[in-house]
């Protein structure tokens, strides 16, 4: 649809620009705030233009952290978050692509039952089953461990469904041709299915990485050891200083650093990501 109405176009652009500003302004404030000394916030006003303390603030956060407030250096928390996001994304993809493979390409007893069991997990995200899950994880001795951070979040159905839909669009003849070409199920899976779902895997990876990175409630609950804090949960601990004002310049530096990796993932994988969402030709 092509419309040539300058007024309409101007209005449309105005709406878009306002939208972008609304989203971008808080981010701008966070970046600006992370470049000022602590004294800049004592007036109760937040500066709008960058200051000169960026290196000092970021250096302090990466070096020592806010130990008195229970926040370890950023580098450790960033590493934990990275591990958590990567393990969740890869784990979810691995588990769901294999289960989708089983459901779409094999006829086994209780196949529909298995399918519905997977389906039901859609209705049980971590937040809903948080207490029993905590109990299980605690009894298994997985508190304060990477396993405890990731495994409960890996088991869910969303990705299984996505792959099931992807596999259903791949013509059966391809599987039959592979069988005639002497490829067994595993070879078909590795050499045909996975290459064909490459873009979908990438798209899913982006979504799941961000999902894992942004986990807040679960890490907050099961980590008490500083060595396993993740950055998103860590920010909350910093901002919640007892008996003192939050050190806003440091908190904002941490927030900015927490934003960078997901942004990088999206920017670097944008092309495959979009391709994965729109590509239909098989």
């Amino acid at each position, binding site marked *: 649809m092509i419309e040539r109405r300058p007024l309409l176009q101007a209005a449309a652009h105005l709406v878009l620009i306002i939208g972008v500003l609304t989203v971008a302004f808080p981010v701008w404030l966070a970046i600006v705030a992370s470049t000022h000394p602590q004294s800049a916030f004592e007036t109760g006003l937040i500066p709008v233009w960058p200051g000169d303390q960026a290196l000092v603030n970021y250096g302090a956060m990466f070096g020592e952290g806010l130990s008195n407030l229970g926040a370890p250096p950023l580098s450790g928390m960033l590493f934990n978050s990275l591990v958590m996001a990567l393990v969740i994304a890869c784990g979810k993809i691995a588990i769901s692509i294999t289960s989708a493979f089983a459901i779409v390409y094999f006829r086994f007893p209780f196949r529909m039952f298995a399918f519905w069991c997977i389906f039901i997990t859609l209705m049980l995200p971590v937040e809903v089953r948080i207490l029993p899950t905590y109990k299980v994880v605690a009894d298994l001795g997985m508190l304060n461990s990477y396993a405890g951070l990731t495994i409960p979040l890996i088991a869910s159905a969303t990705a299984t469904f996505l792959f099931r839909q992807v596999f259903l669009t791949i*013509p059966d*003849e*391809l599987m*039959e*041709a*592979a*069988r*005639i*070409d*002497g*490829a*067994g199920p595993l*070879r078909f899976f590795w*050499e*045909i299915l996975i*290459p*064909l779902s*490459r873009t979908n895997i990438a798209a899913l990876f982006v979504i799941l990485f961000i999902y894992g990175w942004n986990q807040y409630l679960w890490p907050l609950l099961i980590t008490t050891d500083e060595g396993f804090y993740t950055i998103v949960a860590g920010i909350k601990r910093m901002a919640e200083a007892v008996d003192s004002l939050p050190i806003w310049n440091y908190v904002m530096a941490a927030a900015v650093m927490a934003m960078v990796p997901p942004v990088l993932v999206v920017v670097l994988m944008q092309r495959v990501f979009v391709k994965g969402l729109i590509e239909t*030709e*098989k």
Partner: protein
Amino acid sequence: MATITLDNVGKSYAGDAMAVSNVTLDIADGEFVVLVGPSGCGKSTLLRMIAGLETITAGQVRIGNRVVNDLEPGERDIAMVFQNYALYPHMTVRQNLAYGLKNRRMDRAEIARRVDQAAGILEIGDYLDRKPRQLSGGQRQRVAMGRAIVREPAAFLFDEPLSNLDAKLRVTMRSEIRQLQRRLGTTSVYVTHDQVEAMTLADRLVVLNKGRVEQIGAPLEVYRNPASVFVAGFIGAPSMNLLAATRDNGRVMLGDVALPVAVPGQGPVTLGLRPEDLHRAPEGAEGGLDMTVAHVEELGAQRLVHGHVGGQALVATLPSDAPLADRLTFAFDASAAHLFDATTGSRI
């Protein structure tokens, strides 16, 4: 190279009617057999049973002298060409051709030799490094054929391989497939619903209907002596006229017209007349069919005249310069008449 033997082969789905029943067929080494029939007649199912893509619920399939009922498709030494080509979209043409050989752990030099040879035969050498999506329909079709050729299998199985091509390309590819099969001498089973394809390609035709074999024979034999009303109506274009007639004192009667066909017995009978066997006769000729013309289809070389005789539809083929009128009289030679039992449909 091998023979294929089907021995009382059948396929039934759980609790359902038979999709294919009691098919017995011996395919000689190097023979080109075409399975033809309307959609849903079980021809594809039968082919897929030979390929191993469908389980065989009754009877036995032998390729060479091996019973293959329980073998995986990859172990049956067959190659198949699919209707939608089924090329692996993420592989280049070369990888597509080599995939089946690679899976069989053939050494690289031999794979390269066979791929180059097949590419030469099919003239696809120029796009060995392209992906299937960069090829046209005809080129994809060739690649699919190439994937079968490189395997040097005991038999080729074709599942309506030309259906996705446009009419002109279909005719070219048809004769190419025939020449290629002659040249390679590989036993082939070909499924189609297109009776022209069936007639032109086959050494032997197998006409299927509702999962049963109606007739097996050389194309001309099937055309000249259809074994049943079904075969008569299916083979030949335009299709044979089938008229309800009666037998009376050794003559065939159409309404109250006595036709020049001798037949013993009494009772109803189905009379089959090919449109091309009907020719103009003077009005009022003895045993002539008086047709009320409804409409005429011009085919260029000839014209098809549609009309009615005594309330029954009739089609006749006339030369394109033949004069037309509202009423035409047609006659035919007694030898051109096909008679079928009106109840069982089998040839008398």
